[in-house]
């Protein structure tokens, strides 16, 4: 997923311009010439300079390729799939845990990711179960974090 220098420079430049554009409506502190827009504009200004610098250097050294170079892993569909799964599991936790509660969701997320990584099913189930209860008890009971409650296992609370 490594982008070429020229691409990185262009992305940086565009990012800087976008910040500059977005900061146009930020007001100043009443009676002052500085305010909410000062910092974003300063950030945008230097970002644009850095972008130009990187573009300039790439052009100077005649490295004109655009796009990205894929690392060996990124050519493997399986590896990409596993990356996607991490993100899916996190999003899944956010969406499902308020419904099912912490314990079943966390257990499912951990077991699933262990299986994806190639742990044997028995070990995955056992360690996930232990880890789930340990996290629930330490954060939920000891530290009083209001983890999503589950109506299936009320005795854990």
């Amino acid at each position, binding site marked *: 997923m490594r982008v070429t220098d020229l691409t990185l420079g262009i992305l940086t430049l565009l990012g800087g311009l976008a910040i500059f554009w977005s900061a146009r409506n930020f007001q100043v*502190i*009443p*009676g002052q010439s500085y305010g909410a827009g000062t910092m974003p504009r300063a950030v945008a200004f230097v970002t644009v300079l850095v972008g130009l610098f990187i573009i300039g250097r790439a052009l100077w050294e005649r490295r004109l390729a655009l796009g990205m170079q894929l690392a060996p892993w990124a050519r493997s569909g399986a590896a990409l799939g596993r990356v996607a799964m991490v993100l899916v599991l996190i999003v899944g936790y956010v969406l*499902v845990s308020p*419904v*099912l509660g912490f314990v079943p969701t966390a257990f499912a997320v951990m077991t699933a990711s262990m299986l994806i990584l190639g742990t044997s099913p028995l070990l995955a189930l056992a360690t996930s179960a232990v880890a789930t209860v340990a996290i629930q008890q330490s954060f939920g009971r000891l530290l*009083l974090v*209001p983890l999503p409650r589950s*109506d299936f296992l009320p005795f854990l609370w």
Partner: protein
Amino acid sequence: MNFLKTATALGGLVLMTGTAFAQSYPDRPIQLIVPWGAGGGTDAVGRLLGGQISEELGVPVNVVNRTGGSGVVGHSAIANAEPDGYTIGIMTIEIDMMHWQGLTDLTYEDFDILAIVNTDPGGVMVSADSEYQDIESLLEAIKSEPKGTFNASGTGQGGIWHVGLAGWLISEDLPPDQVTFVPSQGAAPGLADMVAGGVDIVPSSLAEGRSMIDAERVVPLATMSAERQNAFPDVPTLAETTGSDWTVAVWRTVAAPDGLPDDVKETLEAAVEAAYNSEEYQTFMQERGFGLRWAGSEEATQIVADDDAAFGEVMKEAGLAAE
């Protein structure tokens, strides 16, 4: 997906039957939301009261900090919760200012205010090496020097002490920006900057300056209250020195989302009052130098409403309110 729907329905059913058949309030843990960070003054008040309320009602009270956004996040979390008595919170004075600033539509009317449990009047503090060691000469200098000669700091832009300072200046027939306000993230950084010579005045509560006053690096010149404060008997009021009738004080209230059932409200009010009168709370507040003040639901709502109107006026005149 079907499984999810069933599960949601099941969960909802369990919850509903749970409340419908509840013998009496409260039968499960209460959540107390503090809109400010752990370790600060509001957090300490919340945790202490939470512990006492828990003893009073016999269920755990979980104190939860929902911080950020100058208090908007936490106050929204309280107001948007179910008004079933299982979510209460500490509502602070910012509720009377943030809607004027246009940050939120939330006002005190979105809450059932149970009680005021603390107030701290504003003050006027200068550095120990300031050339003005009494309030009269300071005011004289502010009047005679050109606008912007003096700087003050101690809260964010449009924060309570900014409003307090502007209100005082208006009451002395001065433009509200005669003293330039330099925003800071709270009273402590403002005081530090004043000791370093960065600003001239900090108009925050004397309680917040207490350790610096004790270390003799900061001098309190006046208190913006009707009477002198117990903790600082030598500090005169504005009324007895410059003759200004301006007063301002921060308060902390215990509040719930608007629309509590009457019986729940009564139970909670009694619990909060008992917590306020507990020895733990009283000694703690005195040790920290916080002002003790009790006002029950009706009186508290009146105070909050009056301040809301007064701040709105000052903020509009000082250009701090959104159009």
